[in-house]
């Protein structure tokens, strides 16, 4: 968008966005990249703001920065805007969580950053509210102190997670010194079979590429099956790019993207909309662009996927059985599988459909959007959550919650016996009251099945919203077709 394109010759989408954001480049140094949008939440920012204060620095562009409360906030007891953080009526009972949220509020005020506090109509998970408000747009560079920032790449933005030192750097300078990653194309040809969702697709991709396979790459997802995904499905796919180590995941913008963006609060309008779309249309990899690595996936061969282990790459089709570590050729992978089965309390050879769960979680920045809730509700309509199973449905934002209620989805959930909550990260990570107890097993639409991720000793199976709902009905891992 700025200045002439540096290099001639065919370029990938990632290279185009990169080149248009280089503030300064010098031999032997990382490029200095301009950052168009910086998303902030309460967990990874307090030390960054402290650093600014200590050095007497200001936030360079508060107008390109936005903050939300998501990781620590409870998802019950939030009655609306203005719910107190301190005092008797506060839903935040953990004093340390409260301090962290308080710190964000103080910092947002002091540094003049727009904040969406818990209970506010605009509040939600950081990666849900960006696209929802139309702040996430094609061609932008977006960062956040959160690894799932890759989500925003679904709209054709170059978006990646950073640590707290880098958060401070972006706050102070609106730039980030960065070494250009390599590029990888993941082409998904064909069409996803009926009953196979974006979540199944990304779980299958991670299983194929391996958890470290994307390390050092910006991945561009391409091919007919990607084009056929809805905007929300694409957000799900890009969200999990980090789960195979990729620095970022990207999908070239197209009519689906423009349609999604049009009319959103921060999207351009009128003549500016036309100028923006004209620019966005140039954001595609050139036909003969060369990627450093290429992977192809056959969509037609996919099925609903579930994880059986303790990293997202340890996934199989639901029809499979728990693998036998002794049958895994690679010694490291075999040892990892052995550790995983011990932690998960699973015996090799057990059909995945026989695995019983205690809890079902529908939500997170992977699958907490309206279409995800619709998919779960469709399965639950007229059915009941099995006895002894607790099901939490947690919208990714207060706006998603409002829209879901407008179409009555909350009634489908509560009638079926599920809990309908307010927005937040909830049981995706064990940082707020929504947690698994030790030994408890969940089917979860979130993105990480790491040991203890949903609570110390908790066991997580990653699934799609439809599989989550079907699992809630049977009490065992199941797909809607099994009902």
């Amino acid at each position: 968008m700025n200045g002439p394109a540096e290099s001639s010759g065919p370029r990938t989408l990632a290279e185009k966005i990169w080149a248009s954001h280089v503030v300064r480049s010098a031999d032997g140094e990382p490029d200095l990249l301009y950052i168009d949008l910086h998303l902030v939440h309460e967990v990874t920012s307090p030390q960054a703001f402290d650093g600014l204060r200590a050095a007497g620095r200001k936030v360079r562009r508060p107008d390109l920065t936005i903050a939300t409360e998501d990781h620590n906030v409870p998802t019950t007891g939030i009655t609306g805007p203005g719910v107190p953080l301190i005092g008797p009526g506060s839903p935040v009972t953990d004093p340390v969580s409260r301090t962290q949220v308080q710190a964000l509020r103080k910092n947002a005020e002091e540094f003049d950053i727009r904040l969406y506090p818990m209970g506010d109509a605009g509040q939600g998970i950081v990666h849900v509210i960006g696209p929802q408000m139309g702040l996430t747009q094609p061609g932008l560079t977006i960062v956040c102190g959160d690894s799932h920032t890759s989500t925003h790449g679904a709209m054709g933005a170059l978006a990646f997670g950073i640590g707290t030192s880098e958060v401070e750097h972006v706050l102070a300078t609106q730039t980030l010194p960065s070494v250009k990653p390599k590029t990888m194309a993941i082409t998904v040809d064909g069409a996803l079979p009926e009953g196979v969702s974006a979540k199944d697709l990304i779980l299958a991709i991670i299983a194929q590429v391996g958890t470290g396979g994307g390390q050092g790459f910006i991945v561009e997802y391409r091919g007919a099956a990607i084009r056929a995904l809805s905007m929300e499905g694409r957000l799900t796919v890009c969200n999990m790019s980090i789960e195979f180590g990729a620095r970022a995941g990207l999908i070239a913008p197209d009519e689906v993207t423009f349609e999604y963006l049009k009319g959103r609060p921060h999207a351009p309008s009128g003549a500016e909309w036309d100028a923006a779309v004209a620019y966005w249309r140039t954001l595609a990899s050139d036909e003969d662009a060369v990627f450093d690595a290429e992977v192809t996936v056959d969509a037609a061969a996919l099925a609903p996927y579930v994880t059986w282990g303790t990293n997202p790459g340890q996934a199989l089709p639901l029809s499979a059985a728990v693998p036998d570590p002794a049958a895994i050729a690679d010694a490291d992978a075999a040892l990892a599988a052995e550790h995983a089965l011990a932690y998960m309390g699973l015996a090799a050879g057990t059909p995945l459909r026989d695995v019983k769960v205690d809890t079902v979680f529908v939500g997170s920045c992977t699958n907490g959007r309206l279409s995800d809730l619709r998919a779960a509700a469709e399965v639950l309509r007229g059915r009941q959550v099995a006895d002894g199973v607790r099901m939490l449905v947690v919208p990714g934002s207060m706006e998603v919650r409002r829209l879901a209620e407008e179409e009555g989805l909350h009634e489908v959930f509560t009638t079926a016996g599920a809990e309908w909550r307010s927005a937040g990260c909830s049981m995706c990570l064990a940082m707020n009251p929504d947690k698994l107890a030790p030994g408890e097993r969940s089917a979860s639409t979130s993105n990480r099945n790491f040991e203890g991720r949903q609570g110390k000793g908790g066991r997580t199976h990653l699934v799609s919203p439809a599989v989550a709902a079907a699992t809630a009905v049977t009490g065992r891992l199941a797909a809607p077709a099994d009902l």
Partner: protein
Amino acid sequence: MQPFTTHTGRAVPLRRTNVDTDQIIPASYLKRVSRDGFGDGLFAAWREEPSFVLNQPRYDGATILVAGLDFATGSSREHAVWALMDYGFKAVIAPRFGDIFRNNATKAGLLPVVLHEKSVLVLQEAAEEDPAPEITVDLTAREIRVDSGTHGGLVAPFEIDNYTRWRLMEGLDDIGLTLRHEDAISAFEATRPAWLPATA
């Protein structure tokens, strides 16, 4: 940031692959608003097992962690770096790191050393020797040396880009470096189209 040139100390072998940052420090420990005190949470769940390597008295005071493939993947939490440093680690050696962690480490002054898998195995064996020899991590010479023991004399070179190495050796603050190019940032900002989104 403290400058890093060379460090000699004992190593701890962590024979696991895919150690994610949730394992290095679970979310429940991330609520503090300072940069210190995170050592308590380091490998919190594993430290409850008496046999876990950090619980073995022979590794008390060790300062170099030798880990398996894909160390510190997952969550971007820089708290993982702070926890390792607070516990006393000066360097972490592994065949491959999570990208964000590696960045975070170099910003905070913890040296991440990417070393060939075979050399990592040798270092892990050396660390398991009785008594474990001291290991030198030499950023100036870009090499790891085992000075004594069965593997004494081993020299394993590692790669690190010149710029990161220079920054670490000087202990330089990135923000200060970038602000020297304020003019370039302002010039770039002047070219940004008006329709780009703003949050205000």
